[in-house]
């Protein structure tokens, strides 16, 4: 990756004069998390960081910057969010310059911090093969990917930013995870309906209703007009009841059905570590069965719930 970062910097340097800004990542305040960097000045380019700590999906900023010429650095999954935003006509292709990268996987700061004991002194993170390597206060440490990566990376459908203007580095495969932990979706599928409800009620007791899951979702475009906080209509009440909180998650999942690219931001942003992307994954599986459609793959396709057909290919209504 050492060489890609230099290539990335030169590509951005070349493009910057024609852009209002470029969004990339830079070292963050916690040694396991990098943070977004808004570059308007050439001097900032030197601060760019690119390694498995670059977790944030920068595509989320694009809708708010519509009308400006914006460059954005994207991993495979981030690029799928951009494609989905293009499909929904929420951003304009000619205004966005995509610097695509090959991603080796993104670490989950929370689980990695626990696995390493602390994030203090982490200086370097790299992934190669099925192992994550860390330099912690000068000393080398390794962890299996199963203990380090974000959930989404275990089901990554492509680690290269497929749609982009500049591809930097070499193309490659998603992380080669040896032992991957059972996904929450698999665990839930083995449960009865009643057990599933208990599972979610139990999880939702921890929800603090910050709505970071919503704010971080690149496809949540209502934001300040969210159904969760509306008093009229009164979809959810403000009490601390887990069912009210689950109701919001159901709304979020339905509003992103067939649109969600499983970028994982909702789950990564949740300060309570709730496995909420699972709800969207479950809906996505249904969307795929019903419409043969996977969000964020083809900029020229329209999302299935944006279109009306008298007869869907896989829903044989008239034959009932």
């Amino acid at each position, binding site marked *: 990756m050492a060489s890609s970062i230099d290539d990335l910097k030169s590509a951005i340097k070349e493009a910057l004069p024609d852009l209002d800004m470029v969004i990339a990542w830079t070292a*963050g*305040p*916690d*040694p396991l*998390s*990098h*943070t*977004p*960097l*808004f570059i308007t000045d050439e001097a900032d380019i030197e601060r760019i960081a690119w390694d498995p700590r670059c977790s*944030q999906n920068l595509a*989320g*900023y694009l809708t708010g910057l519509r009308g400006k010429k914006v460059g954005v650095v994207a991993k495979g999954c981030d690029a799928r969010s951009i494609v989905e935003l293009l499909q929904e006509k929420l951003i304009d292709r000619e205004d966005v310059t995509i610097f695509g990268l090959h991603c080796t996987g993104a670490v989950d700061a*929370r*689980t990695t911090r*626990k696995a390493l004991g*602390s*994030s*203090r002194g982490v200086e370097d993170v790299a992934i190669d093969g099925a192992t994550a390597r860390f330099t912690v206060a000068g000393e080398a440490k390794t962890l299996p990917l199963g203990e380090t990566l974000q959930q989404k990376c275990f089901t990554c459908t492509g680690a290269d930013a497929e749609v982009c203007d500049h591809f930097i580095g070499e193309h490659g495969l998603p992380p080669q995870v040896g032992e991957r932990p059972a996904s929450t979706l698999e665990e839930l599928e083995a449960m009865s309906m009643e057990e599933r409800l208990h599972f979610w009620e*139990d*999880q939702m007791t*921890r929800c*603090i*209703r*910050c*709505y*970071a899951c*919503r*704010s*971080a979702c690149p496809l949540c475009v209502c*934001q*300040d007009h969210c159904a969760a*906080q509306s*008093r009229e209509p009164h979809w959810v*009440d*403000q*009490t*601390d009841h887990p069912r009210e909180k689950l109701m919001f998650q159901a709304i979020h999942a339905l509003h992103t059905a067939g649109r969600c690219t499983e970028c994982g*931001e909702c789950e*990564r*942003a949740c*300060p*309570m*570590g*709730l496995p909420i992307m699972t709800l969207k994954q479950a809906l996505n599986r249904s969307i795929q069965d019903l419409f043969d459609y996977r969000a964020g793959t083809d900029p020229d396709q329209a999302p299935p719930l944006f279109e009306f057909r008298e007869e869907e290919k896989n829903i044989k209504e008239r034959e009932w």
Partner: protein
Amino acid sequence: MLTARYIANDKLLPWLLSLTETRQVLAPVQVGGQTLFAPLDADSRLDLKGLADASAKAALLPRCETLFEFHYSKSEGVPSRTELELRETLPDQETFLFGARPCDAKGFTVFDRVYDAGTRRDIYYCSRRDKTLVAVLACTDPADTCFCNRVGGGPGETDGADILFTPVKGGFVVEAVTERGDAFLLEQPLVEAEDRTEEARKVREAVSDAMPDEAPLVGIQSKVLELFDDKGFWEGITSKCLSCGACSYLCPTCYCFNMTDEIKGDDGVRIRTWDNCMSFQFTLEGSGHNPRDGKAQRMRNRIGHKFSYYPELHDGNLACVGCGRCIVHCPVSMDVRAIVDQARDRALAKEEHVND
């Protein structure tokens, strides 16, 4: 001289569990991969390794608190009239809050100045405060994101607490710091601390001395205020903020709330729930106008409140205790320290410019 006792590591959990017979014990326990303050019971997994993921603030300021319950009914005499019945719901749970960190406890002093201010006493807060004994656990392993020492605190401080636990060889020294804490400790079957109090003092000093020595963030209220109209500054620092509010909800000092009536049929509750200034609805007026309608204005409020307006009203005490939770849990890793440092530097540079 206040009481000092000692408890061995293996006696700690049994002792805490014995306390649960007469009161609720809140302690940092592992819940679904997180470390949160929750009622302790025999199945709890106590986690005293570092700072809990969420602060202890819910012990005194619950996420959702019922202020009263109400019931509508038809008037017996005049059927066209509706009668309203109200039921008071004051908290009465005796609580022992164990394992709060010094920053968590100092957070309570931020609340005290607001909710227990002479004649303006919030009865819900005050009755919880009165019924809660706060035992802090001195920090021995501050994180990269901890900065209590820059905001008037320290890893072994006791502001807002009644009892101090300090880890020493084989166990903890337990020292009373208030009369209340003293009365409680005197009743507990714990052994004398003897010369271990000296060891505990050294432990605290060593941790405190090892904290990075960076410029204090106190006494800069006027500097932050000078930037109030500096739109460029606030927009610059908030470009990456998602305006989500996770920072405020995890903060041990944020105390803003919303009040709503939640009604089902003829029964309802008036509740107050956490609110936060990073949310669009925070200052949304009935007319539809919002004086803080962008994330830059909202961040200005958050930083301004903590480092300028609050200290201005409360003898220079900040509304930030340096726990760093807003940094660790921010989805885009915003750093409150960096913002305040930048604000101070920017204001100083402006002053110099004026003097040139």
